[in-house]
């Protein structure tokens, strides 16, 4: 179905996009041909989402261009991308729940009848025709509320077609679908391709890529690795290209003889998030929770710390049960959580460095119930200095610091509580290499001092370099436990993606 002259419907040509000093995408090129489903794969943070946002008109490339039918285009807004025939279907569809399915499809370009009124019959006819073309049965008159995620995605696709989309970008559409629903979605995608559309398909599941796609582009660390026909690639080869990096000596994990079990998590479950999660962490041990984004790692540690509720299961620290859904109880038991999202969960950006660093301990620092700043200042200075935090004044809002120094304040805030169990969620996300190494050294020292450390990380080198044991999560369950010696990039990725334990 490719055009006879071989000009792709859409071409990504040598695009680069940076956020601050970090290049999210560097010099990536690949073509999308009419009639083809094209897979885009890479680890978390490889730059896939940035590519999607450029196609959607949310970001503009700093360098390079997008070519539609061979002509360069510059999208100033999502509306312009849509007008050029590019539609993006996100993992979580964004329909209006209280409007009918047909109204949702017609949204923004309602057919108008006499007297400028919306022609409801035409709206319904159009929806019915689209569903027929896609070969699915959804009642156009029913409200969008209550549709399954799979049906909502099909409505989104119908909406894209109604807007004359020729390029369909699907960002992990199958993450929340069951096997049957995936099959139905694939049938729809194949029908679209047969009609001459081009599809960009993003998924972490290799079996879906081999089943659906004709071509695959692999990205790593924002750079383009390869674009090849799927037929010529084996799954192990794809994994190797995705992760193939040199492990450097950034990770100074000291060898420690683990002591007694400090943290014991047993049968922890919450419907829709994670199920039957069981693990122990000994004093002096660093246990990593690895897995893809969305595999339930952060949800687990937040339930362990009590920020989130749990449906069942237990958490013990030093043999004593910890009351659920109470960060206070977790803190009293000796736990600390350095959360994933520094800006939303870790810090109060408008408050001063000093207030942030002492927030969990303001009760302990108060003399006779009062805080006049002295004790807080001494405490904040002690810990920020120990972590070599760079700041102008302890009274400055913490939001004025760089990402790395903000992270040090979060660490200071929790180390000041002298935890027996330190849980860190993505401890080095978005911070520079030097600070990264400091954070790693600090975690290693803490473990050597007998702290039980749980580390959630999406960076494989960090996981492999720091962890004594690696627990791999997939779809809310712990699917593999790998000792330091068994853990390799391949074995962790295979477990995370559901391809068996060994490459």
């Amino acid at each position, binding site marked *: 179905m490719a055009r006879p002259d071989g000009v792709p419907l859409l071409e990504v040509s040598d695009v680069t996009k940076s956020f601050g000093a970090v290049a999210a995408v560097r010099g990536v090129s690949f073509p999308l041909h009419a009639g083809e489903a094209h897979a885009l794969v890479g680890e978390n943070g490889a730059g896939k989402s940035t590519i999607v946002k450029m196609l959607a008109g949310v970001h503009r490339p700093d360098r390079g261009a997008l070519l539609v039918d061979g002509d360069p285009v510059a999208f100033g807004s999502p509306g312009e991308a849509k007008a050029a025939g590019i539609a993006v279907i996100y993992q979580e569809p964004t329909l209006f729940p209280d409007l009918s399915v047909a109204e949702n499809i017609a949204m923004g370009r309602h057919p108008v009848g006499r007297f400028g009124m919306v022609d409801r019959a035409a709206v319904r006819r159009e929806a019915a025709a689209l569903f027929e073309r896609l070969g699915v049965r959804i009642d156009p008159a029913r409200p969008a509320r209550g549709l399954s995620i799979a049906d909502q995605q099909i409505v989104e696709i119908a909406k894209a077609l109604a807007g004359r989309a020729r390029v369909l970008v699907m960002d992990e559409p199958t993450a929340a679908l069951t096997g049957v629903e995936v099959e139905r979605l694939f049938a729809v995608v194949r029908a679209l391709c047969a009609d001459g559309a081009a599809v960009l398909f993003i998924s972490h599941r290799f079996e879906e890529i081999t089943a659906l796609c004709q071509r695959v582009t692999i990205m790593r660390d924002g750079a383009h690795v390869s674009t090849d026909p799927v037929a010529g690639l084996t799954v192990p080869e794809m994994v190797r290209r995705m992760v193939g990096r040199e492990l450097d000596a950034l990770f100074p994990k000291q060898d420690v003889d683990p002591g007694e079990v400090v943290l014991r998590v047993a049968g922890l479950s919450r419907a829709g998030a994670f199920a039957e999660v069981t693990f122990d962490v000994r004093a002096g041990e660093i246990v990593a929770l690895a897995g893809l984004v969305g595999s339930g790692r952060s949800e687990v540690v937040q339930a362990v710390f009590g920020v989130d509720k749990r449906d069942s299961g237990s958490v013990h620290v030093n043999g004593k049960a910890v009351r659920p859904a109470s960060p206070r109880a977790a*803190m009293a038991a000796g736990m600390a959580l350095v959360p994933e999202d520094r800006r939303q969960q870790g810090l*109060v950006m408008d408050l001063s460095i000093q207030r942030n660093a002492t927030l969990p301990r303001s009760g302990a620092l108060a003399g006779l119930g009062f805080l006049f700043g002295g004790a807080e200042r001494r405490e904040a200075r002690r810990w920020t200095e120990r972590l070599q935090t760079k700041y102008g004044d302890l009274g400055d809002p913490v939001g004025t610091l760089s990402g790395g120094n903000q992270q040090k304040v979060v660490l200071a805030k929790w180390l000041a509580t002298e935890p027996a169990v330190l849980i860190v969620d993505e401890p080095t996300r978005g911070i520079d290499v030097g600070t990264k190494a400091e954070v790693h050294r600090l975690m290693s020292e803490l473990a050597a001092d007998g702290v039980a450390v749980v580390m959630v990380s999406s960076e494989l080198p960090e996981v492999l370099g720091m962890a004594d044991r690696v627990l791999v999560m997939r779809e809310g369950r712990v699917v593999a436990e790998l000792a330091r010696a068994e853990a390799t990039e391949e074995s962790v990725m295979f477990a995370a993606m559901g391809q068996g334990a060994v490459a």
Partner: protein
Amino acid sequence: MSSDRLRRISWWDVAIIAITLVVLLVAAGAVDNFGSSRNFGFLVLDLLPIALIALPMTFVVITGEIDLSVASTLGLTSAVLGSLWNQGLPMETIVPLCVLLGAVLGAVNGLFVTVFKLPSLAVTIGTLALFRGLAFVVLGDSAVADFPAAFTSWVTGGVGGGPIPNALVLLVVLAAVAGLVLHATPVGRAVFATGANEQAARFSGIRVDKLKFWLFVSSGAVAGLAGVLWTLRYSSARADNGVGLELAVVAAVLLGGVSIFGGKGALPGVLAGVVLLATLQNALRLEDVTNESLNIVTGVLLIVSVLLPNLGRSLRATLRRRRLRAARHT
């Protein structure tokens, strides 16, 4: 002194205190009788209910919530006070009961906000109507007036019969307690953290729901106390006592530099806001401006106090953008 504490006194606080002083001086010079000690007593009694209710309201607004039911709580406690007095209960029993009633009414707000997770704006608009309606159920259109002189004269009188009103002493003590709690205790730290980023506060082990619940309870209790004082001052328990007072309180709090979006504010500024509002109203009343027209002043001040910080912020943002653009072109 840490710059943290210096920064707490913002340009807005300085401005509002300065404006308040200017208004006081102008009123003393230009308005007949404004400076008299008799009028000073009236001024204190006028601002007493606003100031009292503004104390917990400051906490509530800094946590990012609001309590609009306070004036109706005041009205309902006033009606209940009158009704209980008619039934012959001793005043010594009625007064604590009324404060307790206020606390219970506040707990109702707190429950809806923290347990059912409803927005406080909607909840307290609802209870604003509900509590006022209950007040009319309790007392109807009638008024109760024959309160014991020992109580009414304590409210209107001065310390030891002198020129310093008893009410002022009460207010100063409560304001000092509120100021200490807000600015120098772990509870105060939790209030600011919750208002600035509720999620981060929860992740830091702050029991956000518990905090908010007790703030609504205190807001109700203080409104109940204000209801008692209001009734005794005018020696009149009526269901419509204090109608519209919540607007004056919110205006004073926002005028005092508390952010309607939560997370920012300081008690000295709020007290200045209260004094400014009450002084303007008192002076205008001495100039024979009608009560209805005074509402215009409250309304304008409320809008100005929300508008100015926003204007300032967007002006700064625009300037910054322009500078950036200029820097890029050079």
